[in-house]
């Protein structure tokens, strides 16, 4: 049994964790939730004894009474991987790229026991079978790059549970994965806990994930636990105002906006085909062709908000690039307000000005060397920069709720949420008829996400532009779109009014996506 007693961590004098008390009992799943920077990951690293340099921990982390904070490093090495295992968020980078998966699992066993290589390999085989990577299809000799993200996360789990630890810590284990893969990994984790009677500390920002799997929940804010208790009771009572705010924000649905359609659709996609030529398998063999978008057709009416959902690799990013006129099509056509869209100079500036885009990553979306006014004015390249461009920038800034005096600042001076507002202001400034929102709220914390969704709804109400809302998060799409397109393997498999598609999904892909979507039970809300 693991108990955190009064755990505090400070890095160079700055407190990161304050007086955290938490008990992790055998066979129990504990959900640790909070927004980014709240100290969730630091809690995990403190338990593992892997705090970054310069961090000082106080209080105690007790493993069967022994305080791990005062245990010497050599003894900690015998505990890590043996009695406490851990998996991380990024499956793509969590495994050593130069070592076979078999050796990586076997290494854990050989660290903690004197064991022959063959015996360790046999045990590794057994562990990989257990996490759903059966022998014939997944030999021990595979390298990580030969596996998908979900499969790599399974390998990471296999090596974390290889020694059947008392505690498994999973730090955002499914955040980088698709909904369907997420559901499978969560099921696997739950089964492992139930079977082996180990304790699981599941760290996540997603309340819905916790609601579906955890026995107890702890809510963290700014390094402190504001509330913790049995899952359903905590969700029903929500004693702390922060828990209530978090809960409300995660279910937030902006007020409906009604669209006024006219006769020409703003966007019309007909039988679009986009192919990539892949590298040759053999030196003189033929080039293989990957058809990423395969005969897609749909319309978006003026002022309409349309969702595009699908798993990663379904072709939605490729389709988006074609719609934005960045890549050519190999078949079919895309028309924007009746005129053909194409890459480079083929598309006149006036046409290009009718569509703008907001990207996912609030950090990569802006040139770090430019000031806000120049960044926001960049789309004027399409229309010619008006004489009063500074006023237009100020106006766009106030429209997205940022003080116009920010115009002379650099992008690093803004938070993630503010950057996303600036990205919206940049898209808005030339008054496009269609804005493509490419996972535009996926990287934001729930409370900020709720505010940005409200802003988007308000802007659509006041300016009447159409949205193409691309997301892997079905919950968000459900709240903000009129119509939804479901994409799978390059094609659109189902489309229709959002409520109907999500309420009574007809296609297998849609049903799979809906079933995998983690949800907080509807009757758990506070009255």
């Amino acid at each position, binding site marked *: 049994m693991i108990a955190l007693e009064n755990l505090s961590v400070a890095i160079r004098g700055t407190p990161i964790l304050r007086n955290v008390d938490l008990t992790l009992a055998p066979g129990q799943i504990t959900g640790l939730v909070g927004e980014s920077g709240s100290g969730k990951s630091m809690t995990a690293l403190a338990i*593992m004894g*892997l705090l970054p*340099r310069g961090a000082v921990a106080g209080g105690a982390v007790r493993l069967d009474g022994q305080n791990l904070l005062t245990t010497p*490093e*050599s003894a900690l*090495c*015998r*505990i*890590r*991987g*043996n009695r406490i*295992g*851990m998996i*991380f968020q*990024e499956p793509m*980078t*969590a*495994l*050593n*790229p*130069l*070592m076979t998966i078999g050796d990586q699992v076997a*290494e*854990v066993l050989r*660290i*903690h026991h004197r064991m022959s290589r063959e015996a360790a390999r046999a045990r590794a085989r057994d562990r990989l079978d257990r996490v759903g990577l059966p022998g014939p299809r997944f030999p021990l000799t595979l*390298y990580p*790059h*030969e596996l998908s993200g979900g499969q790599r996360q399974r390998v*990471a789990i296999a*090596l*974390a549970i290889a020694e059947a630890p008392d505690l498994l810590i999973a730090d955002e284990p499914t955040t980088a994965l698709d909904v369907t893969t997420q559901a499978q990994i969560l099921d696997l984790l739950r089964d492992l806990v139930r079977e082996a009677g180990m304790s699981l500390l599941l760290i996540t920002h997603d309340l819905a994930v916790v609601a579906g799997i955890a026995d107890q929940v702890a809510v963290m804010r700014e390094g402190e636990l504001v509330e913790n208790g049995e899952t359903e009771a905590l969700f029903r009572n929500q004693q702390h105002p922060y828990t209530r705010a978090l809960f409300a924000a995660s279910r937030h649905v902006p007020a409906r906006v009604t669209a006024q359609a006219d006769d020409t659709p703003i966007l019309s996609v007909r039988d679009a085909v986009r192919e990539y030529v892949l*590298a*040759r*398998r*053999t*030196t003189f063999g033929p080039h293989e062709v990957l058809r990423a978008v395969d005969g897609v057709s749909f319309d978006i009416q003026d002022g309409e908000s349309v969702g595009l959902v699908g798993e990663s690799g379904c072709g939605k990013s490729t389709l988006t690039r074609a719609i934005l006129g960045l890549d050519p099509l190999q078949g079919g056509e895309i028309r924007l307000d009746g005129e053909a869209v194409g890459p480079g100079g083929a598309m006149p500036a006036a046409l290009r000005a009718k569509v703008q885009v907001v990207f996912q990553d609030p950090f990569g979306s802006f040139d770090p060397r430019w000031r806000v006014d120049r960044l926001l004015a960049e789309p004027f390249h399409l229309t010619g920069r008006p004489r009063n461009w500074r006023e237009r920038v100020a106006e766009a800034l106030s429209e997205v709720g940022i003080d116009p005096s920010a115009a002379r600042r650099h992008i690093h001076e803004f938070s993630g949420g503010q950057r996303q507002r600036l990205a919206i202001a940049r898209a808005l400034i030339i008054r496009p008829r269609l804005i493509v929102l490419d996972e535009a709220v996926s990287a934001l914390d729930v409370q900020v996400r709720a505010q940005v969704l409200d802003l988007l709804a308000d802007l659509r109400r006041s300016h009447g532009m159409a949205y193409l809302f691309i997301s892997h998060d079905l919950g968000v799409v459900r709240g903000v779109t009129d119509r939804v397109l479901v994409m799978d393997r390059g094609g659109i498999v189902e489309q229709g009014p959002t409520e109907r598609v999500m309420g009574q999904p007809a296609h297998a892909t849609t049903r799979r996506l809906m079933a995998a979507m983690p949800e907080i039970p509807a009757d758990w809300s506070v009255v």
Partner: protein
Amino acid sequence: MLPYLARRMISLALSLLVASLVIFLLVEMVPGDPATFMLGTGAQPETLAALRAQLGLDQPLPVRYASWLLQILSGDLGQSFTYKTPVTGMILDRMQVSLPLALMALALAVLIAFPIGLFAAARRGEAGDTAIMSVTQIGIALPNFWFAMLLVLLFAVRLRWLPAGGFGGWDAPGAALRSLLLPAVALALPQAAILARVLRSALIETMDQDYIRTARAKGLSRGKTLRRHALRNALIPVLTIMGMQFSFLLAGAIIIENVFYLPGLGRMIFQAINQRDLIVVQSAVLVLVAAVIAVTFLVDLAYAAVDPRLRTR
């Protein structure tokens, strides 16, 4: 594995071909005529013409290039204008000094750099790391031929432990090795300093990767994580630098041979330049370039051995 290496091989063979053309054309641009140079300005026009025909100098440029290329492929680099002996033999003779020297220097550089780089990376930010990094800064800034002179002053002139220069041939291997020791040290130390810094920064960068955290979570100590997981991953940038260093060592050897009066490729090239023995210059440069390209290919082979992602691509 094959496609990657096959592609590299084709690309490097093309490089070598273009390099040979560049060398050929540059030497062609040299004012003056080898035949005149060989016979002196007072030679009879008929004798001159006969010699030119014999050397193939009366042929058009592309023909001469093609025949030179064919000749090289058969292992014949032509005749020295000055010594009237086959250039192939001269170069092979000189290589017996230059190649062991470059290899000794590379081995020394690696032997010094790896322990130092590993030590500094393991103690990143601590006093030992800072001290080592300061020493390597000094090593990088040392001009190797000046450093060579200082070594001679100390070990040959003052202490009389090692010879100050010259080379007696491999018939007395002990003496030969002693003659090459100071030149090799002079070449190796600055390169070792560079290599140690590259290794350290590659290791430090690797230690920040997610899979290192995974390895620590398995229960490996910091030191074992460094040796078992970080080192192999850090090897890729280090191999690149080692490949480049070999070409620097070959070129550096040309200069160092002059400090120690070693009868290597470098001394031969300078003598040939002074004697305007262009065929020797041309051939020696081609051999040097071929050596650099061959090393590049060895580095590619090493990449493929280290990184499974290259093997399947």
